[in-house]
């Protein structure tokens, strides 16, 4: 386990470095730079020569590898640099944006999970049947609503018409409610979709009929068989949604006027503000790698058959019986045993 963790951490650092490098390269590809975007802006009215002089003082005319090395060494020493667009320290911008986004991400994700489970259960067990059928279509409906439109409608109705929450200097909790709702709806769609499919497939399995025949209640089955088996793909999607969270936050934060990582990203892309963008990439990568490490660690917890993951493919190619190996050399006897028991039930 420790070796596995160390390996994953090493890989995480590698991913961080690669993501940073890839993002730097993408920024090199984008024509123009932040200095040009800011100082050649007609609002300032500077001449070409004056802009060029400022670019030189920024080092924006240096070759890309020099700039890459400078920013990389800056990051390694903890210096995130300064925003080209506003001159503010990137650390200031990020420090003021991160908590807001983290909070929104957590609450949005939690709400999405609740919503997805509710939709999936209603779609699978809802009565009458047309209700279940309606909920079955909910995910495709949720995902095809433009997020900006959803946000605006929610604000119009709940804030401007009903006056439940204010959009102007709301309190910390008050400011979280509507964006959470807005973020959760599209976020819950893939999760609900996967859950619905997984539940349907598990319910069709022979072993479920067997357990039911043995007199187990529907609720017991939900908890013990269906949910646990559906958890695996759901968990994967959940890990993926972290990326969606940042992307979804771009629109949500814009519509709700929140200063977060999403809004910062949109602004930085618009201004070719490379130091800010690179900091965002690093933050997103760290968050992403951590979340997915967690997901990978959770796989064997929710599905004991995966406790010998990684060796099975090779084992199969050696044409060995998987079961013999699993029960003989698996790191966790009980897990393998439970898997065996389960297969006995199914048989």
């Amino acid at each position: 386990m420790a070796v596995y963790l160390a390996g994953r951490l090493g890989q995480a650092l590698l991913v961080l470095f690669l993501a940073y490098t890839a993002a730097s390269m993408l920024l090199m590809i984008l024509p123009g730079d932040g200095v040009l975007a800011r100082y050649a802006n007609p609002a300032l009215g500077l001449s070409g020569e004056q802009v060029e002089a400022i670019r030189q003082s920024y080092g924006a005319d240096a070759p890309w590898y020099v700039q890459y090395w400078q920013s990389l060494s800056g990051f390694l020493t903890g210096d995130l640099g300064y925003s080209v667009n506003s001159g503010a320290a990137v650390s200031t911008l990020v420090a003021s944006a991160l908590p807001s986004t983290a909070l929104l991400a957590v609450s949005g994700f939690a709400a999405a999970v609740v919503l997805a489970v509710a939709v999936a259960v209603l779609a699978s067990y809802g009565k009458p049947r047309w209700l279940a059928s309606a909920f079955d279509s909910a995910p495709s409906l949720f995902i095809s609503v433009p997020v900006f439109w959803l946000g605006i409608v929610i604000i119009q109705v709940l804030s401007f018409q009903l006056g439940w929450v204010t959009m102007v200097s709301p309190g910390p909790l008050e400011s979280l409610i509507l964006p959470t709702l807005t973020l959760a709806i599209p976020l819950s769609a893939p999760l609900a979709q996967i859950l619905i499919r997984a539940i349907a497939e598990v319910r069709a399995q022979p072993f479920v009929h067997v357990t039911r025949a043995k007199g187990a209640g529907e609720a017991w089955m939900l908890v013990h068989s269906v949910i646990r088996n559906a958890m695996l793909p759901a968990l994967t999607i959940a890990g993926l949604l972290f990326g969606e969270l940042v992307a979804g936050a771009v629109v949500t934060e814009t519509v709700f006027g929140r200063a977060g990582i999403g809004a910062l990203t949109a602004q930085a892309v618009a201004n070719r503000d490379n130091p800010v963008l690179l900091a965002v990439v690093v933050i997103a990568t760290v968050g992403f790698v951590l979340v997915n490490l967690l997901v990978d660690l959770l796989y064997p917890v929710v599905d004991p058959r995966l406790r010998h993951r990684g060796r099975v493919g090779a084992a199969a190619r050696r044409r060995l019986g998987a079961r013999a190996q699993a029960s003989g050399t698996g790191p966790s006897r009980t897990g393998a045993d439970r898997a065996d028991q389960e297969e006995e039930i199914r048989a």
Partner: protein
Amino acid sequence: MSASTAHTPPSAGTAAPASGTPAHGGARPAGLGTRLRLPRITTLIAAVVLGVTILWALVPGLFTGHNPIDGGETASLLAPSAEHWFGTDQIGRDVYSRVVHGASRSLLAALIAVAVGLVVGSAIGLIAGSRGGWVSDVLMRIVDVLLSIPALLLTLTIVIVLGFGTVNAAIAVGIAAIAQFARLARAQTVTIMQADYVQAAYGSGGTYWSVLFRHVLPNAVSAVLALAVLQIGSAILQISTLGFLGYGTPAPAPEWGLIIAEGRNFVATAWWLTVLPGLIVMAVVVSTHRLGTALREAAQ
């Protein structure tokens, strides 16, 4: 225990491993019970919606007489009426006509975006999930890198490199979706690889590739396809975000995402600009989903 028994993995569907993908539906079994009557009506509506949309794409001229790219002297932001079913847009063009003429471009874009993500992503996920070891590690870390870069930055750069246009925007959105499909396909594959029938298939002399294509792929693809249907909707909306930023379809060509994006500032004044094209997108996605479900049910 042989490969042909019902020992399919939990999330692999009840379609027999050898019968191909769930979407590969055979004829509908005869003697449907009354329980299925309601779904058949919705399925019929779904088929009609998709059929009409495809006809829009093929022969737009049959459905509207208005010019989609020149509004002439028509006032801008007119509400829906008998003359202009979906109203007129911010410069006085007929929105319904723009939606009809935009169908081919938008459907193509959505298909390209989904296809790029689905094919490339599933391939990466299948290989990573079935080979394990360093191959999996390398592939999945590449996927992690892809996922870590903000989608906005990634798509924008791809559009700039490939050049402006609907197809290129669609490819960019597809590339951004590769990582999602890859991770999901890998998770499915890892599960399936544990199944007895897969192990048995190896045991009875199957090669890696034959087992992969005959047993793993058909079962892993089910959940991935479910995601793909959703992806149609989000692809159009992501193209719309690109359009809002000025990186979508070049003016004046109509495209659904662009129409929705351009209406964004008029949500409160001229709701029809975003809502009606938005409803079309929803109708297409829900119908695709409905039809997909019906086909899968029929195949069982």
